[in-house]
């Protein structure tokens, strides 16, 4: 469904590439996570994957067509995106904001039909958020709001879901809940998922495949156990770690610095 092959990109006026020779492929029922320290090019990767930016080298295709050549309207029927930030200007209820996700399925002058409202109900159900349907957005907690945003992306009835740092400001319970939700969507609804995250441990637990970036370059890609080795993590993140295994997946535990070399 989504395929990046040998993609490189440099922002105008920048001194180095934001992405360099990155390849990635996401199909149905696959959960891919992209990891890396700050400034490693993760958000640039999402923009290129969605056609908002055009790669200078290589290709980014969605369903066989170049991502940037897709009309926005049609692409939105395939790919649902939950960006990092949302700046909602006007007060809204949950149901109204999820209904916005039906835009790619509506005609110019046509009204919302029963099937649109049904899709909204299904999306809310998938995210376990039906009980929030009539609430005002500003009354929701961070975790609830995040679920609503995922529900809106689901209302588009996409085949691919892209999330950019969705767990950023969530507490433990809500972050775990979010990852469980996404895993469930992959397994039950057959979605393909591409998620940018900085949480290595949760990515390792829930994702099928990891891509580790550093300075725009791919350092390692593949199954979590192959990618997250102690040596790799310590090199990329410049911090000593210890590795453990939980549920068959590698988990890293950052170590404290020895007394003498503490800043």
């Amino acid at each position, binding site marked *: 469904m989504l395929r990046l092959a040998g993609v490189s990109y440099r922002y105008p006026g920048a001194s180095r590439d934001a992405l360099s020779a990155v390849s990635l492929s996401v199909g149905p029922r696959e959960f891919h996570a992209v990891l890396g320290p700050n400034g490693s090019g993760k958000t640039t990767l999402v923009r290129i994957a969605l056609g908002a930016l055009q790669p200078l080298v290589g290709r980014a295709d969605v369903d066989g067509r170049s991502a940037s050549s897709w009309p926005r309207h049609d*692409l*939105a029927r395939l*790919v649902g995106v939950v*960006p990092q930030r*949302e700046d909602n*200007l006007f007060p809204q209820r949950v149901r109204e904001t999820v209904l916005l996700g039906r835009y790619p399925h509506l005609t110019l002058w046509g009204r919302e039909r029963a099937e649109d409202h049904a899709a909204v109900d299904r999306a809310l159900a998938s995210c376990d958020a039906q009980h929030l349907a009539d609430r005002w957005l500003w009354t929701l907690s961070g975790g609830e709001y995040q679920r609503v945003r995922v529900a*809106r992306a689901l209302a*588009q009835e996409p085949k691919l879901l892209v999330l950019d740092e969705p767990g950023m400001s969530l507490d433990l319970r809500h972050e775990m809940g979010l990852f469980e939700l996404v895993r469930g969507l992959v397994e039950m609804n057959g979605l393909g998922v591409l998620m940018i995250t900085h949480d290595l441990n949760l990515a390792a637990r829930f994702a099928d495949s990891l891509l580790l970036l550093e300075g725009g370059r791919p350092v390692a890609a593949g199954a979590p156990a192959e990618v997250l080795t102690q040596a790799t993590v310590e090199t990329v993140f410049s911090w000593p770690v210890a590795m453990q295994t939980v549920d068959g997946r590698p988990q890293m535990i950052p170590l404290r610095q020895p007394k003498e070399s503490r800043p």
Partner: protein
Amino acid sequence: MRWTLLVVVAVLALVASVALGPAAVPLPELLHSDIVWNLRAPRALLAFLVGGSLGVAGAGLQALVRNPLADPFLLGLSGGAGLGAVLAIALHLSGPWALPIAAFVGALAALGLVYRLGLIGGTGRGGALDPRILLLGGVAIGAFAAAITTAIVALADAAELRNAFLWLWGGLSGASWDSVLLVVLYVPIPLAVLLAASRPLDLLALGEESAGYLGADVEAVKRRVYLAASLLTAVAVAVSGVIGFVGLVVPHLVRITWGHRHRALLPAAFLGGGALLAFADTLARTVVAPRELPVGVVTALIGVPVFALLLRRWTIA
């Protein structure tokens, strides 16, 4: 229910505009009166059309620049129109339509300049319209045009040009069936463009990036909304000078009852803006009869307290 109420209010405003006025026309004679048919009726209709256009343009612009303080005249159009009008008088251009045409051309020139300023990255497909720069550019171009206008007035034969400023303050005195026909032929297209952009404008409230991911062609929507709103404002200035506060306050008032969905908000803003301006014009003609106030003064006197009340509501909520 609320739509019925709004339509009733609009009709009442129109009827009052036709029935009331400084020239005492007794009710039985209303339908036969020359004054009513040739002066009050076209004036009432023009007020409604101009007020409605400003209301819709204001709502569209507030969504486009994501700023609830946006007013159609923030885009520099009034400065351009004033400069055009003053130049027409200073150059002794004659003809009954010289002033409106000159004002319209001036407004378009300002529109073009601000648009060009707001386009980042060239005019082709790669160009993106930055709403913040539209606002800043509009203020700058408007101030620049106003400065040139003031210089011309100061240097040239003063008396006629001072009267031009009175025209600029807003007035529907020039209303006739000719101007009504002109506006009726002109406004449907920009209004239709704005109405067609209702859903994308809803999406735009989430931010440009999110709107794009939900399927809106963000750049095309921004350009169309900006141009349509500006064209509506330009024709309003050309036929009736600068009438402030309608485009700013009416969208907020209407949002209280109709919410933020533009499919309902835009038509309601049209009816509400039309009713408001027709009502304000009636006041302008009657409160100090036989004299008349510039209608821009009346809308400001109504608009400021209403806006203050709205602000209180926001800060309390």
